[in-house]
């Protein structure tokens, strides 16, 4: 088996909450709390979860845009957290990020061409002529015309701006790109264009993606493997088909049941109750137990570890086997 391109182990990140009047202790939000995964070269790992689950923080930690509190990140066999600033900067050529909102990711006072070649200038790559050529290639690669280079971001539509951001991310020929809700701010017809573009680029350039999104349809479409996050932890990870067609964690099941489909017609929603708990004060035991229809006593006290339950398919649930076998568990909350 080839070594993974990205190897993440037991990643943690805490954020101190603001000091408040009349509150003795400062508490910490554990935004990412023990996350581990591998990404193979040429693979797309989809990271899905609701707002505040830590998926975007995870994306920033693996690029070391944010410093992890603890844990390890290896990229191409190198320990990212042990690198000197100079070495880190060199390795960053290989890893890039595309953000959700291209409007705020672009500088309104620079032409699009200047922004696309800026990474080459920063890393001192090529001369003016070769950069000019590279700019033309990049524009063609993302489906923009040469004359677009001299225009400013405000002259572009949302979809075109996102193409500019993708061209800029590709300027240094990276191997790995984190796409953080890269198509989420766009209308559906434009979203489809950008998703197709990202898939084409992956094939042409042999890219590896960590694709972060809250949209389960987008995740299914773009990913090879999928990790589902809840309150800072991965609750289930596995091949796309297993996650969507045979999920093992009750949270994954609830997410999938909550998505309204345009194919089923009028439906009644099978919903899970309650809100996501406050991440500054997560529940003890399994973090999902407050909303889980299968929760029993052990779930309130003991955190279930991520366990191998199928081929390359892990889930963190005490009762995954029983739920899979449709053995009804007791429903103490429902029995009240």
């Amino acid at each position, binding site marked *: 088996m080839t070594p993974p391109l990205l190897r993440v182990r037991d990643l943690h990140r805490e954020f101190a909450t603001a000091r408040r009047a009349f509150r003795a202790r400062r508490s910490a939000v554990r935004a990412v709390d023990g996350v581990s995964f591998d990404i193979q070269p040429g693979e797309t790992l989809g990271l899905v979860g609701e707002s505040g689950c830590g998926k975007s923080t995870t994306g920033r930690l693996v690029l070391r845009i944010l410093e992890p509190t603890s844990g390890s990140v290896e990229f191409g066999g190198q320990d990212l957290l042990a690198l000197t600033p100079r070495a880190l900067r060199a390795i960053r050529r290989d890893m890039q990020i595309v953000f959700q909102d291209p409007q705020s990711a672009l500088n309104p006072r620079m032409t699009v061409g200047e922004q696309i070649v800026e990474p080459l200038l920063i890393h001192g790559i090529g001369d003016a002529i070769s950069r000019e050529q590279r700019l033309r290639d990049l524009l063609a690669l993302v489906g923009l015309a040469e004359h677009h280079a001299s225009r400013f971001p405000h002259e572009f539509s949302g979809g075109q701006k996102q193409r500019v951001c993708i061209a800029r991310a590709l300027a240094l020929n990276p191997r790995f790109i984190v796409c953080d809700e890269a198509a989420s701010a766009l209308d*559906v*017809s434009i979203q489809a264009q950008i998703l197709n573009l990202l898939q084409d680029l992956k094939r042409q350039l042999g890219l590896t993606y960590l694709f972060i999104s809250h949209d389960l349809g987008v995740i*299914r*479409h773009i990913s090879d493997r999928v990790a589902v996050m809840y309150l800072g932890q991965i609750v289930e990870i596995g091949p796309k088909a297993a996650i969507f067609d045979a999920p093992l964690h009750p949270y994954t099941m609830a997410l999938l049941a909550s998505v309204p489909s345009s194919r089923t017609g*009028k439906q009644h929603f099978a*919903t*899970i109750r309650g809100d*996501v708990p406050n991440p500054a004060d997560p529940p003890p035991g399994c973090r999902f137990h407050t909303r889980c229809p299968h929760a029993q006593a052990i779930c309130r006290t003991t955190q279930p570890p991520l366990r191998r339950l199928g081929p390359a398919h892990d889930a963190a649930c005490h009762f995954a086997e029983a739920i899979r076998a449709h053995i009804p568990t007791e429903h103490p909350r429902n029995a009240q």
Partner: protein
Amino acid sequence: MRPPQPDTAPKLLDVANLRINFGTMSVVDGVSLSLSAGEVLGLVGESGSGKSMTALALMRLLPPGGTLAADRLTLLGEDLLAAPARRLEALRGHQIGMIFQEPMTALNPVLSIGSQIGETARRHLKINRQEARDRGIEALKRVGIPAPESRIDDFPHQLSGGMRQRVMIAMALVCEPRLLIADEPTTALDVTIQAQILELLQDLQAEYHMGIILISHDLGVISSFADRVAIMYCGQVVEEALADRIFHQPMHPYTEGLLASIPATDHDVERLTAIEGTVPPPWALPPGCRFAPRCGYAREICTTAQPPMTQLRPGSRAACWRNTGYAPPGYAPP
């Protein structure tokens, strides 16, 4: 599916040829809609399609600079175009309720939720403070807020996003309106919370037999809730049909393109069929069919003449030359 209503009773809402302009710029052009009591109409479109402007116009609440014209705009037979400002104020919040996308901006942060719900009730129902508070508690209980007796004194910032949207719904429903306009009511919410809110709206709709106009860009949300669907593109309705039909047999190329653009959660496709190009801005609309520059079926006639809205089967109409065999305007088959 609801059977067609007899034509004798006045429609809950009847809009014909609605036009909205900002200066010389047309943002809504010739929209006709109707809604019966107890019916849910889904209004779908991408950003800039004019769906939210249409909703605001129904309540005569256009932003400054907007001018409105229509051949007909009636609520239960009453002409809203001719109604004086006082009458409109009496109708809004009483006969017409509205829910917006972002509850945090729609709620007043310095007033308790009880006083905001109570304000609506006292104004329209002419009841006293205590009665208004009781009604507020009742409404909060109905929308599923736990411990409503104490929650009623909370301020908006003390509630989660889903709870705030429940409060918005309680406010909109406290006077039991006949028509509810819900503009992207779940777009800002996470998917599990969205499911809870949609379930609540479905229950309340069945209980109060309201007519609902549900505005959304999310075809999944529309499909799971609406009886009938109108698809808007560049300020016009391009297709309107029963929900089952529109999602399985779209008659307009734009509807077809939208449906093919959405990645599904229940099956895989190798490649999404994207609609090429972008939505033209309202100051640069193409002549002829507004979708023609992006349409794979477009022929010459599509670039010169606007296709008329054509009845294709009972309860299903679309504006596309393809459905009439690309026949030129005025052409009558032998």
